[in-house]
Structure formats: structure tokens, C-alpha cells
């Protein structure tokens, strides 16, 4: 008890030192000099509360830990888990089908803003799923994932700007370009150990951003590229007037009056299709030899080598395929925004995508989808918390690692039937 007390006093003092100078005293720049002013009484209350909480928690920590031991770790155990594997697959298929159906019908019933937000969510889902291949399945921490997103976006923007190439042709090109970058960057760096790899990918991400920022003649530098063509549907444009020679207008062909919502819905559905394809392709990949090899590599690299698996090839495949999905997402992003600049591709963006993967549960597709929704929609719903958004992201990443590193919805191992052979 005595040592607990002195420890509690110590931690309370530390809490005060950590919070007081930065929270309690605010720098005010005025003219040539700088002064400080004390914060308002609310801030003081918060500081006092924090100090008190830390003090009492540390004082009674034995009791607290005893208390916490009795609270079971949260588990999402429903009757579903005890189902027969074959039945489970059926339930899952129906479930997926239902979700897709709802997602298809939904935009026709809600506001334009909601659809726009949903489209953003879908972009993050795609990025999360792509990064999940690299981080969650293959266990390679890539902190520069946003670079491939940027490559995809700039591929379309530049192709559209200089060669007038349409979205549909640019989409595969953007994917291939990003994959190519992934391959070229991956080839030298994948020999590195996990944490070095993370830093090198971060460095690469920054190098690409600095390049985009400074290659002004090609990319427009900090001003970015604007006026990127929107996608068309079989040559039908969604604008009020035809922009491209030879195209028709959606509302004219359909014989309805012009409404800008059509464009928003169209973009949403397009994103949805891309996400559905992504989900199915990745689901297939995981069950294929290459997907199994990714996971095996995450589990034990040395064992993989001893079994004759070429780790460079396997890592490279994960890196390249993951990058390709970021390329698709980037291409779509450029088309949706109509304008891109290096601002959209900073390290924070990489960190957000990583946070989605971490929150969802590494390797788990459903988890990543739910996390992408949560991370994008929650800050929108609670506007007053908007300014604390990044603070919360950071805190969440730490707490998740400490409390539940496998994520909220960790991936389940597939149950394989041992086929009877006769």
C-alpha cells in the first residue's frame, strides 16, 4: 500500500507536468512579441480531474486490476459460431447478398450528402482492403501505402489531361501503374526486417509526395490538377451539357430532366461495384495458394524458407497486389473529385488507412469494412468532435494495440472439409 501511494503521487505529478504547461498556458502571438495567457476554468477542471483520476487509479490499482479480471474480455459469441460449417457458408452468402442489395437500393432513398459520404466510405473500404493484404495477411507494415493511391490518382489525372484518356481505360492503367510502382519499390526493400520496412515505405511515401509537390511542370505542384473528367456510363455523361465530343447526356437519353443527384448516385454505384469486385477477388486470393503463403509468411518466415517458399516472390506479390487496389481507388478518387493535389496524399492518410485495418482486425475483411464505415461516418455524425478527430485516431490506435491487437472483428480461420475420396 505504501509503495502504491508513493507511486500514485509520482504518477499524479507526472500527469500534472504533462498536462499543465501545454494545456494550461496558451501561447498568444501578437505583433512582434509573444505572450501567454492562462486557459479557461474548464481546462483547469479537466487537468485537475485527470490528475485525480490517475492518482486514485494508481493508489487502488491492485483493487482495480482485481476488479477487471472478473470482467470477461468482450467476445462476440452468438449462436452463429456453433453452426455447421456448410450451413455457415450458406448464411454468409445470404448475408453478403442482402448487404449488396441494401447498398444498391439505399442511395435512392437518402440525401445527396449521405450518398457522397457513403462514396467516401467506399473509397476507404477499398484502400483498407488493399492495405489489409499487405499488413493484415502478409504481415508487412507499409506506412507509405498512400503513395500507391497517389500514383493511381495522378495516373488518371495526367492521362486525362495530356492524352484525353477516358476513366474506363485509365482505371486498369492506374491499377497497373500502382502495381508497377509497388513492384519496383518492393523489390529492393522487401529484404528488410519488419520495422525497417515500415520506415523505408514511409520514406518512399514522402519522396513521392515531395516529387509531386516539386515537379511543377508535370503535376502542377502544390496547385494540383483540376478539371479531371468524370466517368461516363456507356458514353453518357452526367453533367448538364456534353463536355466531350461524341458523348450523350444521361438525362437526355433517359428522357428525364437534369438532376445533379444522378451523378452522385452513379459515382456511388460505381464505387460500390469496385468494392464488391475487390471483396470477391481478395476473398478468392486468400483461399488460393498465394494467399495461404502470405499468411504463412506472416506467421513464420524461417519455416516458409525451409519449405522451399521464395519469400521475396511472396512478399512482392502481396505488395504489388495491395498497391494495385490502391491504384484503382486512386483513379476513382481523382475521377470523383475532379481535382487532386499532393495535399490528399500525406502520411496522415496512410495512418488513417492503417488505423482502419488495425481497428477492423488484421486480415479480416468484414472487420475492415465496418472499421472504414466507423472511421468515416462517426466524425461526420459528431461534428462538434471534428477537431478532436485525429486526437481520437491516435488514441484509438494505442488503445487497440494495448487492449485488442487482433482488432474488433478478427479473421476466422476457414474450416476445410477433408474431402472423402473413394
Amino acid at each position: 500500500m505504501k509503495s502504491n501511494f508513493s507511486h500514485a503521487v509520482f504518477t499524479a505529478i507526472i500527469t500534472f507536468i504533462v498536462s499543465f504547461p501545454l494545456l494550461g498556458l496558451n501561447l498568444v502571438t501578437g505583433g512582434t512579441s509573444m505572450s501567454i495567457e492562462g486557459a479557461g476554468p474548464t481546462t483547469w477542471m479537466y487537468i485537475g480531474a485527470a490528475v485525480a483520476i490517475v492518482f486514485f487509479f494508481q493508489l487502488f490499482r491492485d483493487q482495480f486490476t482485481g476488479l477487471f479480471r472478473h470482467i470477461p474480455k468482450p467476445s462476440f459469441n452468438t449462436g452463429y459460431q456453433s453452426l455447421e460449417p456448410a450451413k455457415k457458408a450458406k448464411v454468409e452468402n445470404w448475408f453478403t447478398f442482402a448487404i449488396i442489395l441494401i447498398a444498391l437500393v439505399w442511395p435512392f432513398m437518402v440525401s445527396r450528402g449521405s450518398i457522397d459520404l457513403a462514396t467516401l466510405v467506399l473509397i476507404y473500404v477499398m484502400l483498407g482492403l488493399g492495405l489489409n493484404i499487405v499488413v493484415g495477411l502478409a504481415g508487412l507494415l507499409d506506412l507509405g501505402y498512400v503513395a500507391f493511391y497517389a500514383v493511381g490518382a495522378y495516373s488518371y489525372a495526367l492521362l486525362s489531361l495530356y492524352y484525353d484518356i477516358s476513366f474506363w481505360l485509365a482505371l486498369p492503367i492506374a491499377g497497373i501503374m500502382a502495381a508497377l510502382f509497388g513492384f519496383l519499390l518492393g523489390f529492393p526493400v522487401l529484404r528488410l526486417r519488419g520495422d525497417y520496412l515500415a520506415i523505408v515505405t514511409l520514406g518512399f511515401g514522402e519522396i513521392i509526395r515531395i516529387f509531386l509537390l516539386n515537379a511543377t511542370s508535370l503535376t502542377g505542384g502544390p496547385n494540383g490538377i483540376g478539371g479531371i473528367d468524370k466517368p461516363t456510363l456507356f458514353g453518357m455523361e452526367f453533367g448538364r451539357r456534353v463536355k466531350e465530343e461524341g458523348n450523350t447526356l444521361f438525362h437526355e437519353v433517359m428522357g428525364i430532366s437534369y438532376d445533379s443527384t444522378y451523378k452522385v448516385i452513379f459515382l456511388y454505384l460505381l464505387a460500390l461495384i469496385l468494392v464488391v469486385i475487390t471483396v470477391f477477388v481478395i476473398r478468392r486470393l486468400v483461399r488460393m495458394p498465394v494467399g495461404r503463403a502470405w499468411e504463412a509468411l506472416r506467421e513464420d518466415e524461417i519455416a516458409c524458407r525451409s519449405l522451399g517458399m521464395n519469400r521475396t516472390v511472396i512478399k512482392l506479390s502481396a505488395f504489388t497486389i495491395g498497391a494495385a487496389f490502391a491504384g484503382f481507388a486512386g483513379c476513382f478518387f481523382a475521377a470523383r473529385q475532379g481535382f487532386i493535389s499532393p495535399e490528399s496524399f500525406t502520411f496522415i492518410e496512410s495512418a488513417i488507412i492503417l488505423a482502419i485495418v488495425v481497428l477492423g482486425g488484421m486480415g479480416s475483411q468484414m472487420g475492415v469494412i465496418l472499421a472504414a464505415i466507423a472511421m468515416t461516418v462517426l466524425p461526420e455524425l459528431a461534428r462538434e468532435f471534428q477537431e478532436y478527430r485525429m486526437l481520437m485516431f491516435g488514441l484509438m490506435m494505442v488503445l487497440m494495440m494495448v487492449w485488442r491487437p487482433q482488432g474488433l472483428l478478427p479473421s476466422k480461420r476457414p474450416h476445410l472439409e477433408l474431402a472423402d475420396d473413394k
Partner: protein
Amino acid sequence: MTNKTLLNVSDLRMQFGGLVAVNGVNLRVEEGQIVSIIGPNGAGKTTVFNCLSGFYTPTSGVVEFMGEEIQKLPDFKISLKGMVRTFQHVRLFNEMTVVENLLVAQHRHSNTNLLSGLFNTPAYKKSEERAMHRARYWLDKVGLTDVANREAGNLSYGQQRRLEIARCMVTEPKLLLLDEPAAGLNPKETKDLDNLIVSLKEDYHVSVLLIEHDMNLVMGISDNIYVINQGTPLASGTPEEIKGNPDVIKAYLGEV
């Protein structure tokens, strides 16, 4: 004798900085033989394994496998040639299921073409069925069918050891390197292991190179034994010869 030499190691030397871990080791494994390496702890046995399997590149010396020099090859290529190893501390893919462990190991035989996998072509299906069949066969053989869908990390120690051997066997090796497979096993499990190793040799024509401390096991199944002490060869011969060798007794029991 119609036996062919499978593995021939001459004058192997491995040096880390100033430390000579292995020096002047010679080994020979004929087809269909079980050969053991014994020696006190820290004698450099595992280092020899690491050199043979390509995890270390030996400082000097020649490792010939099926008449081909392999000492410069990377680990995974050596494994692909048919020399596969286990580890002193079991290395399984812990979060994957038992079957998945066996499927992963067949990577080399699998159809890894992405497109045929994505479109589920007949050739791909066939390759997957074959892999599943082989996995099933070996699960049965090592008695793990009941736990096939359990995560490998949750198996008992003895089961993990057997899974590691099965995982090597699905790669269809010619020579199996086992690093202390009986460590931590109870007498019953050791007996099963004994039978399994003999069966690998007799029924599957796999040669085995074994590092082991369990002398009953070693003396019972080995065709030939090499003794290493402090990184250098001490003696070699049949189990009978080794048992009577005064140098070996001295190395094990200390100066008497």
C-alpha cells in the same frame, strides 16, 4: 551395395567473426539410410544443419546433394531440391489450422497462377484437390485427422512435432533433416516417433539425418552415427562402434 550417396559433406567450416562454430566436419548419407549426429550441447550440431539447409552459408567446405554442390544456394532452393528440415524449437504457422499448415507446405506443387486461381480453372481445381488429398493422407499417417481444423498453435507439444514432420513429408523430400524431434516427448510419444521415422525410411524411401539426444532412439534406428564435439568431428561409425568408443564416452562424461 547398390546404394547411392545422397548427401556428402566434406570439410565443413563455419565461423562467426572470431568464433569457429564448426570445423572440418565430414558427413555422408546414403540413399535409404538413417544417419544421426550426436554430441554434447553446444557442440555445433544445429549449426551443421543450418549450413546444410542454407540458412547459413558455410565459411568453407563442400556440401554435395545428389551429386550437386549446394553450399552457395539460398535456403529455399535447397529445400526445393528435396532436402527439408525441422527445427529444434518447433516452427509452425501457429495461427493457421493444421490442414492449412500442410497445404502451405505444398506451395511448390500448387498451381500458383493467379488467373487460373481467380477463375477456378479445372487445372487449378485439380491441383487443389491433389494438395488436399496429400494433406489428408499425412494427417491420417501422423494421427492428426481429428484436430485437422484446429489452429496449430493450440496443439499439444507432441502433436506439434508430428505436424512439423508431416509438413515436411507433404513436400515429398528425399532427405529429411530432423533437429531433436524427440525433445520434450514422453516415452510413449518417443516410441511412436521411432516407428514413424523407420516407416518414413522403409515405406517412403526417405533418408533421414537426425540430431538427437535420446540415445535409445539414436542407437535403435541409426545406420550410421557421427559424433561432434566442440565443432569438430570426434568419431563416426555404426551404433555398436560408437557405444564402445572411449573418446565418445569421455566427451559425454567428462574426464574420468
